């Protein structure tokens, strides 16, 4: 597994966790409840643990001579960025339509719901980026003999 794949896995784990947190945050915004401090601390701890794990375990090269990033990695990253950019547009359009369809044109949405919704969109775009990278690497053949 190269550095790009490892980054994608860590990013995937963090975004899944944060998406779960954001959905709860949105629900709380609509129900006008406050996130308990203990819950907030738990989420932050989980997030920090994954980030620290990624930083510590995946930052160091396996060997000094190991190539971190080559032309194929660049191509895969570029395609992943393109796919995530398209997903951003889809999400923005969907969010606009969903809000209008579910809530209705005459209803109101609390302002406090806007930050978690925007954060959720950002997280989903990041999730799409991670999945696109892992799928593209997965399409290659399995590791052959050394």
């Amino acid at each position, binding site marked *: 597994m*190269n550095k790009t794949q490892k980054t994608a896995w860590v990013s995937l784990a963090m975004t899944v966790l944060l998406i779960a947190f954001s959905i709860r945050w949105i629900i709380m915004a609509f129900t006008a409840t406050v996130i308990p401090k203990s819950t907030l601390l738990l989420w932050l701890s989980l997030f920090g643990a994954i980030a620290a794990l990624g930083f510590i375990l995946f930052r160091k090269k396996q060997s000094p*001579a*190991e*190539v971190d990033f*080559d*032309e*194929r*990695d660049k191509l895969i990253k570029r395609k992943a960025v393109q796919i995530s950019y398209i997903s951003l547009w889809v999400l923005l359009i969907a969010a606009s339509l969903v809000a209008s369809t579910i809530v209705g044109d005459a209803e109101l949405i609390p302002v406090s719901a806007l930050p978690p919704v925007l954060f959720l969109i950002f997280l989903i775009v990041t999730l799409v980026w991670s999945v696109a990278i892992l799928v593209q*690497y997965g*399409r*290659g*053949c399995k*590791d*052959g*003999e*050394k």
Partner: protein
Amino acid sequence: MAKNESSGERSQTIKNQIRRLRFDNGQMTQQQLADAAGVTRQTIIAIEAGKYAPSLTLAFKIAKAFDVPIGQVFQYQQDSS
């Protein structure tokens, strides 16, 4: 075989002899070839399996690693369909 296709054109495939050349060059490993070409081992694996078509620069680097002309490493085939 790495494929390049576009609508209305014949299927183009690029074959390579990397695996054979590795064995002919003192059982060179994929990692050794990757180090010589300046890429990751995964890229060499993908090229050997025909899942990835290398850039011209990389193709020349691989040929140089085997000390053979590039035509002995990569062959272009155009299939009529």
